[in-house]
């Protein structure tokens, strides 16, 4: 039952490959960071997945490229990455607050809340955290997340709602 490449063109064109890379690489890499918490390994696995796609470019049609990448990355991740600590930075150029008007108490309280939130995010289930951070940090819409994870939009909504509800609970009870 050998499958022939027949008319499928593959992704060997450098321009096409670059476009796929720019569309997918960062999302894939961040997904791995949220899942496993290891930025360096996530970078490696992402690079390896694309290198493998490039190596086998004639066998993979464009519309299959994304699922190919995630399959390769997930397999590699399962073998190579042990779940561990993550470094989530807090973007300083946040436009949310203007520093001048805040009292020291408010700043302190804000920091306290933030560190609780970070802690609570680490305690989410892998499924909840991945969906939640893809939405919050990468700004992915639910249908995009559903597409990437291979689940329904309803399932994404359930994970996001679950994440919000656990976060609030955990922050409230520390």
């Amino acid at each position, binding site marked *: *039952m*050998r499958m022939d490449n027949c008319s499928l063109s593959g992704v060997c064109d*450098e321009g096409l*490959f*670059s476009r796929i*890379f*720019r569309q997918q*690489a*960062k999302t894939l890499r*961040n997904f791995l*960071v*949220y899942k*496993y918490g290891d930025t360096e390994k996530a*970078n*490696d696995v*992402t*690079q390896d997945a*694309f290198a493998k796609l*490039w190596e086998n470019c004639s066998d*993979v049609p464009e519309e*299959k490229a994304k699922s*190919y990448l995630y*399959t390769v990355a*997930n*397999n590699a991740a399962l*073998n190579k990455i042990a779940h*561990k*600590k*993550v*470094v*989530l*930075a*807090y*973007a*300083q150029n*946040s436009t*949310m607050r203007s520093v001048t008007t805040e009292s020291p108490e408010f700043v302190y309280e804000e920091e306290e*809340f933030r*560190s609780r*939130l*970070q802690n609570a*995010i*680490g*305690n989410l*289930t*892998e*499924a909840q955290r991945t969906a*939640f951070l893809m939405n919050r*940090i990468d700004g992915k819409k*639910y249908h995009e997340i559903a597409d990437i994870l291979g689940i329904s939009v*309803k399932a994404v*909504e*359930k994970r*996001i*709602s*679950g994440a*919000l509800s656990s976060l*609030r609970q955990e*922050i*409230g009870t520390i």
Partner: protein
Amino acid sequence: MKKDNMEAENKYDLARWLAGEMDQDELTAFRNSPGFDDYERIAQMSRDFAVADFDENRILNRIISGKPKTIESRTIPLYRSNLMRVAAVLVIAIGLFFVFRTDIVTEKSGYGKTGSIVLPDHSHVELNSGSEIKYDKSDWNESRKLSLDGEAYFKVAKGKTFDVATDMGTVTVVGTQFNVKSRENRFEVECYEGKVKVTSNGRQTMLTPGMAFISDHGNVSDVAVSDRTKPAWTLGEIQFTSADLSQIASELERRFDIRIEIMSDSEKTLTGTFSATDFKETLELICRFYKLRAETRNNVVILSADE
């Protein structure tokens, strides 16, 4: 809208709120519910988290130019001044390390031994000699996924998809019985019950009972037919399907917990079933097939051409 149980009951409403999909009435009700301020804060603050930057251009160039990744290349980001400085300040300033809750279970069977494992959903795994599986217990019900190095026979409980990931491919199934062998450059999957999907090198093959998938050094051979109902190794046998001498020797090493050295090379491949309990008999049959002579020195079985 049911205002009273807004928080607890509605599984999807928080997500709809976050996506700005609530209508005016729902929104008013939600704003008046006790958790609203916290949710609002979580939503705002979480948007401002960031992960370390990812240098797309560098990585893309490296892939296209075909340069292998080196140890050195990993450290390069340290010298990318601006980004790294910002990142370092952020990391030090806020110190955001947190630990994920996971529970990775590793099960191994040594040489000369086999193992039997029951997974959290009561799926059964039998491990052949010198094999290892790993899975995340805490996440098991969410995604039934394990990694395999070696060979194992699976009896999967009915339920969601069940994934077995190996270096050479992934096997996806629902409620079924199958054997996966992932050794050196050889990847074999045999299906005994239900349906099995094999993904290897970006290709997918569907197996039904009696079908087998074999890939050797990346060459996929046509799907063979097998009439067994369980893998030979679970019945005290050793089964070879067009295996070469070095693959045969590795299998014997694992099954009998011995060391073998081959002083002769042969291109011939062997198909057949041998005893996994009677080492002498098995060795003799293989020696006869390959015209080899066996002698034992320092606990190593040396196979050389029989002139």
